């Protein structure tokens, strides 16, 4: 792209643009060009070649235009620029503002049940993302089976809450603990593995958990899942229209009329609390010896050993803590839905959470929030686009990876800074 203006430059650019247009044509013909219809006479299809033409033309001229952009403003170079120290304070401010906005969200005039529900989903994924971030972003151990811990948390919560009649807050730690145990169980056999090999084993682990859930019918209910999981209550006050004997409902106690939205909002605040606690916990851990050891392990395991750090315990702690946070999120998911089945914990789930962590920028707390918002709400916004929804979703992911190859927020903030002498 350096030989601007020369004939050879023009030729190259046209060739490149034509090539891109060919690819666009091949993709657009089946995806955009044919629409299936469901008429009374049976399924059929209509062709829309004019749409294909628009897509191909857009790609051709878009690519041509891109080739005229000067090198300096191309995305790769921009992403490589490092951020000054003062920007970590900006990130802190953004985080605080975000938390305040999240707290106020259900009270806003434009708020609706749909919006709060959506925000709850986003927060579940944020929590999962933060949990996975510990093992992938900090410790550098690629995990493709994170949904397994999410499932262990959800199922152990459902079983304990139903079987032993425990409340949400009593069963929550048990769910976290069992998920952490599952994390150690996964961690032990993979201590010697790294990178691709580790990814494959964790992928297998995720599938094993899912298949056990499907086949262990006597405990997990098999493919039918578990029904009627207890809903959380507000200090023992349930969110129902008429109180069971011996209790007061939330709406009666506060003299409000019964409204199902109250439970939705309550659930939202529960997950917000869990997510904020998770954030505090992981930010804190990062500044502790264990957090620094995780990052050191990611950078160089051999050097860690030479410094007397035990890689086994460092890895296992990363797996256990990451799994525990996933387990908490799973427990919340179970109580929110009231129903769980193995279908909710497939590979798709693991892949989405991993995508959130990678798109957000490995190791970045705020990046996870942004990526979770994008990945969870984008398919919602896309509803008007009907069957192009997933196409749009994919394009957005590709776009982020082109413009920010190391994630939305790729800058690593140091866990400690050298203060001028005497200032400490």
């Amino acid at each position, binding site marked *: 792209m350096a030989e601007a203006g020369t004939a050879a430059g023009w030729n190259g650019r046209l060739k490149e643009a034509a090539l891109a247009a060919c690819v666009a044509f091949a993709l657009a013909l089946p995806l955009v060009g044919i629409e299936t219809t469901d008429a009374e006479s049976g399924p059929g299809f209509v062709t829309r070649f004019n749409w294909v033409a628009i897509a191909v033309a857009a790609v051709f001229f878009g690519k041509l235009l891109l080739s005229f952009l000067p090198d300096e403003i191309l995305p790769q170079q921009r992403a490589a620029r490092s951020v000054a*120290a003062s920007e970590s304070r900006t990130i802190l401010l953004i985080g605080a503002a975000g938390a305040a906005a999240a707290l106020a969200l259900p009270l806003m005039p434009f708020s609706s049940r749909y919006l709060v529900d959506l925000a709850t989903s986003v927060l579940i994924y944020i929590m999962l993302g933060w949990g996975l971030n510990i093992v992938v972003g900090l410790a550098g151990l690629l995990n493709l089976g994170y949904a397994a811990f999410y499932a262990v948390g959800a199922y152990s919560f459902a079983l304990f809450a139903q079987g032993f009649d425990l409340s949400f807050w009593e069963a929550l730690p048990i769910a976290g603990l069992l998920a952490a145990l599952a994390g150690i169980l996964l961690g032990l056999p993979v201590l010697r593995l790294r990178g691709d090999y580790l990814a494959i084993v964790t992928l297998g682990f995720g599938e094993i958990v899912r298949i056990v859930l499907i086949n262990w019918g006597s405990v997990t209910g098999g493919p039918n899942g578990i029904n009627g999981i207890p809903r959380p209550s507000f200090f023992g006050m349930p969110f129902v229209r008429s109180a069971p004997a011996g209790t007061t409902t939330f709406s009666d106690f506060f003299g409000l009329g019964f409204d199902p939205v109250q439970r939705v909002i309550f659930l939202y605040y529960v997950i917000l609390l869990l997510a904020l606690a998770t954030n505090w*916990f992981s930010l*804190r*851990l990062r500044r*502790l*010896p*264990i957090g*620094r*050891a995780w*990052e*050191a392990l*990611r*950078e*160089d395991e*051999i*050097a*860690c*050993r*030479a*410094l*007397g*750090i*035990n*890689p086994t315990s460092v890895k296992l702690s990363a797996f256990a803590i990451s799994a525990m946070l996933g387990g908490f999120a799973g427990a919340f998911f179970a109580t929110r839905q009231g129903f769980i089945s193995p279908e909710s914990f497939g590979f798709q789930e693991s892949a989405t959470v991993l995508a959130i962590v990678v798109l957000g920028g490995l190791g970045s707390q705020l990046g996870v929030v942004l990526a979770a918002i994008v990945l969870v709400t984008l398919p919602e916004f896309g509803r008007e686009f009907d069957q192009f929804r997933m196409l749009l979703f994919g394009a957005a992911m590709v776009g982020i990876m082109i413009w920010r190859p190391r994630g939305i927020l790729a800058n*690593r903030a*140091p*866990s*400690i*800074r*050298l*203060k001028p*002498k005497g200032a*400490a």
Partner: protein
Amino acid sequence: MSAPASAGKQTLLEVAHLSMRFGGVVAVDDVSFTAYRRDITAIIGPNGAGKTTVFNCLTGFYRPSAGHLGFERDGHVLALERLQGHRIAREAGVARTFQNVRLFAGMTVLENLIVAQHRILTRASVYNLGGLFGLKRHRRAERDAVEKARDWLERLDLVDRADDAAGNLPYGQQRRLEIARAMCTDPTLLCVDEPAAGLNPHEKAGLAQLLKSIRDTYGIGILLIEHDMSVVMGISDHVVVLNYGKKIADGTAAEVRRDAGVIAAYLGEEA
């Protein structure tokens, strides 16, 4: 060849009949030598002589095929060949640097030095639990750790770059930082593997100065693998020469330089 002047010196490491075989290849063959406290012991030899293999046995990266590695610490002798990798650094206090620098490149210079103090900080934070809730003892320990790191940064003239990623430092400074990181573990024996490789003459002189000052200030033993003879001859108290896995000479720098076997190994036999 006379024995090295060991009178009045404290033995730190006693390597006895160390052998390391990889299948049919004998990388180290029945090597014995002694390293003393407050001494710089250099291990030299042509490429492939088995120098780094000796280091890897000492620091637990390899388990020796035969031989004994006796390490004296606080009056009793530890058998290094029986300790697990990370416990050698922890319990014996053997720290090392690597031939190809192994810093935590994505972490800052300061963080590299703090990670090296992992054990002290973990204890002070009551295995991280206390640190989670801001225990005072942990905060104080962290402040001490930063002060120790600052001392090293001042010595290496790196204070201005404390918050930069270690991987962004010039090569010579990365080598020095790796030595500082090893020193932050409070070792009793520091093993440095070719620290002068890739440095310019000025940096080499600075490195020799640094190693000498570490020996004199901290009174620890230093084991040095080096090809650059100007560094080795200038600062070593004691030189061990290996060739094809066997020890061929052992003595002071001056003695080794005159040794016919050493000259033959480096320059080839006279016809």
